């Protein structure tokens, strides 16, 4: 299977008062054609930065310091000029943001805004455009599209606006749809509508999806593969099946454990101690999760852990999977810790 998008060792730095801090560190992932790929992580872990970097829209204070983003194996997105990128944005790759109003202009009608997207990439007649817009609005479940397309964004509810944004993102039948927290601002019943809609439409249009979310439930319901991010790094990359049935990285294990004890009132809710480090708190060397990890060893604080293939479809960035990490500070065999986890997890 050939890759539609391939990110290799992408690093992004931020400039704060003349110093550079690393906020996305050597991120690699690849998305196959028609694949539904997820990035999950807590707020500030670098999910949105990754999506913005793919669109080549990083703010001036931010820069790609290393790595490549290959689209369809030939185009290196980080090196394209804005003019070249314009041909790709909205046509080959579209993006949906958390807050629909970031994509919609309050002073123009829905019809006008969708036709603007079409005009950039095609030369359709007015009548053709009208028909295309009506048909895509129907596809995203907007009732009475002929009259709704004449309305302004503020006249629509949050759920309807997000549908319009999806219609706008899909109108050129993109090969890749990036959805950055597309349902976080919506209620659960509307979230369910939108996720179902996205699943349907991407099947219909053969679009690959990059779903970015902080919610493992959304990953479970929509994705085939997933990258778990922590403090700017991918800590585990896996099929969604493997991630849920045998998570390998201590951070992923912690997240799943806190979710699975939720709702079970007899048990204390499992929690990961401490806080997510901010970019200025990060050290150059060592594991970024070390300050919160229940299995931390001396080694972890000094040396950066490698990516290790832990099962046939799973990679995890942790010393525990290597020979050097076999014994932790208490002299306990590290793999025991992982087995212990799986035991509590399978109950």
């Amino acid at each position: 299977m050939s890759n539609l998008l391939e990110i290799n060792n992408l690093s992004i730095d931020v400039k704060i008062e003349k110093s550079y801090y690393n906020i996305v560190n050597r991120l690699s992932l690849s998305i196959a054609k028609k694949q539904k790929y997820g990035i999950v992580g807590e707020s500030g872990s670098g999910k949105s930065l990754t999506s913005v970097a793919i669109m080549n829209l990083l703010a001036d204070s931010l820069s790609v310091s290393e790595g490549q983003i290959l689209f369809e194996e030939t185009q290196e997105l980080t090196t394209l000029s804005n003019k070249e990128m314009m041909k790709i944005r909205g046509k080959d790759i579209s993006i949906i943001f958390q807050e629909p109003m970031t994509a919609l202009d309050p002073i123009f009608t829905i019809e006008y805004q969708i036709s603007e997207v079409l005009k950039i990439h095609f030369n359709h007649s007015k009548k053709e455009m009208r028909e295309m817009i009506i048909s895509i609005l129907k596809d995203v479940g907007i009732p009475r599209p002929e009259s709704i397309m004449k309305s302004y964004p503020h006249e629509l509810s949050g759920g309807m606006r997000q549908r319009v944004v999806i219609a706008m993102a899909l109108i050129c039948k993109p090969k890749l749809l990036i959805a950055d927290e597309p349902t976080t601002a919506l209620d659960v019943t509307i979230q369910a509508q939108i996720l179902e809609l996205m699943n349907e439409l991407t099947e219909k249009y053969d679009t690959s999806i990059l779903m970015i979310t902080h919610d493992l439930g959304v990953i479970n319901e929509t994705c085939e593969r997933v990258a778990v991010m922590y403090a700017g790094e991918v800590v585990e990359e896996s099929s969604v099946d493997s991630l849920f049935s045998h998570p390998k990285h201590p951070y992923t294990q912690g997240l799943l454990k806190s979710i699975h004890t939720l709702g079970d009132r007899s048990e204390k809710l499992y929690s990961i101690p401490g806080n997510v480090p901010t970019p200025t708190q990060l050290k150059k060397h060592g594991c970024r999760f070390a300050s919160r990890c229940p299995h931390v060893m001396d080694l972890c604080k000094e040396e950066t852990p490698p990516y290790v293939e832990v099962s046939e479809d799973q990679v995890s960035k942790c010393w525990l999977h290597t020979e050097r990490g076999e014994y932790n500070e208490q002299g306990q065999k590290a793999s025991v810790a992982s087995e212990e986890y799986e035991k509590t997890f399978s109950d």
Partner: protein
Amino acid sequence: MNKVKKPVLQVKNMKKHFPIKGGIIKRTKNHVRAVDGISFDVQEQETFSLVGESGCGKSTTGRSILRLTEPTDGEVYFNGEEVLGCTQKEFRKYRKDMQMIFQDPFSSLNPRMTVKSLLLEPLMTHKLYSKKEALNKVYEIAERVGLSKEQVSRHPHEFSGGQRQRISIARALIMNPKLIILDEAVSALDVSIQAQILNLLIDLQKEFKLTYVFISHDLNVVKHLSDRIGVMYLGQMMEMTTTESLFNNPLHPYTTSLLSAIPSYDRNKKKDRIVLKGDVPDPANPPSGCPFRLRCPQAHELCETHKPVYQEVEDNHWVACHLYNEGIPERKRIRL
């Protein structure tokens, strides 16, 4: 659980209608029926949760109880005493026992004050302690919620979201309240931090014998914390029962679809999802009859013409739906 059954809080048929003004002379044209006649009791040391979608009136209910906004109608009893009839000044004596914690810890904390002065402030306004006693109390409570002595002299913006929420909790706790209303208190926090704060809230409740009214749209969190749950829609209570029976035996069609919409964390159990049509109607123009009827998969003729009665259909299980006018038919027991 062996809790003494004594209502700390009783809300009876409370309404809050916000006027919508229009035209040049700003005449009231219509009303947003934010809260439209809701009733519930909260027992001592219980956690009672209010759930429902955005705009259904959860926050307005919480704010009305504390008279941060004046309810339009209804009664509220605190420890058996009616507290809506008295003046705001008289109400102050109850306020010390009823605290509120908000979603966004940053906007509710004055950025110019140190944590120490933030915590001292309520103690000093109520003149309950000498300065020295008050300071000791501040350190004691701060430590209890997990803030060190050194951290107490810092400003709120130097803290992360989770730590700021600890500060808000300390601020509510320092008055020794009986009742705390928590409005989306953990909703803005990341999963790994959310768990820390929820554990803290549960521990504090036992230790200080607190009663919680917990407002949230997150049903997973609510399930973890609550003894009983009320489900609101368009300013009205649709269903109210124990946590266990709400999740295992939901009766109201709205509750059923709300539960089925939660994204599942279980890889093996794919849900039969009930996807609701359309959006929540405008609370200024609610539909006739049942407020849920425009989205209800089981709506029938009666639902359009008559508003369903909110009634106790079995022990401790209240529902407002015409499907249960004759009690609960066996086949209606839906299991998820």
